[in-house]
């Protein structure tokens, strides 16, 4: 199963619910396109809900980093919500866990973007 993205708006925050596998190829390019589309629409507060991501490889990790820097370069913020143990482990192994703002509760995550 490849990746699936579904975007919803919570206040002024765009929440992308991601499910499936974020791996080299379709999985990582779909995530990249999803973030780019939001940026093109002027969205600067993006919350990636990774709760249903079953698998992520090094390319998928790279897409998270790329998304983070793309949004930051536009003056925005990309944050992560609901990491599975495996995704959290990979971010810790690659020393990226402290780079991202990570939340376990959506309401708290949304509030963290501020007004």
């Amino acid at each position, binding site marked *: 199963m490849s990746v699936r993205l579904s975007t919803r708006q919570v206040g002024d925050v765009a929440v992308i619910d991601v499910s499936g596998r974020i*791996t*080299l*190829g379709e999985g990582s390019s779909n995530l990249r396109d999803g973030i780019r589309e939001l940026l093109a629409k002027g969205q600067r507060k993006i919350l990636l809900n990774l709760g249903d991501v079953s698998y992520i*490889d*090094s*390319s998928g*990790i*790279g*897409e998270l*980093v*790329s998304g*983070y*820097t793309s949004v930051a370069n536009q003056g925005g913020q990309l944050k992560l919500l609901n990491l599975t143990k*495996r995704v959290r482990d*990979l971010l810790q*192994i*690659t*020393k*990226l866990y402290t*780079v991202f703002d990570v939340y376990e509760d959506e309401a708290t995550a949304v509030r963290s973007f501020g007004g």
Partner: protein
Amino acid sequence: MAENVTGGSSTLERELDSRLESADAAESLAMEVAQAAGFDEEEQHRFGMAVRESVINAVVHGNRYNARKKVRLRIAADKERLVVTVSDEGEGFELESLPDPVAGENIFQQSGRGIYLIRTFVDEFQVRRLSPRGTEVKLVKYAKRK
């Protein structure tokens, strides 16, 4: 394709196309072998990912998706360890020249974490040049003593 089972050890060999789908097949095979060898679910996952990343490197950086070039996968298992070799027909690379992906100056790079993850997930990792061309990586994962 070849398969050999003797006295508690087994060896699988596959010739894979230079396509990303080959990584899925290799990962599934590796996880099956690890499961049969008695590794727990998390270790199966880590071993599978190490093999997956190795095959991706062979397809993408080694063979550069060239349909005329193949990736060769060999997985040998016994009660002590799993040994994997993945070889390509590419130009090769110097392990020492790869940047450290967790160093501060590289942390925001989009790529370069594959081999780092492989080395994290297996006990031994070696790279050697093949003649006349190609690269072989060797991964070894030992069974944990109970």
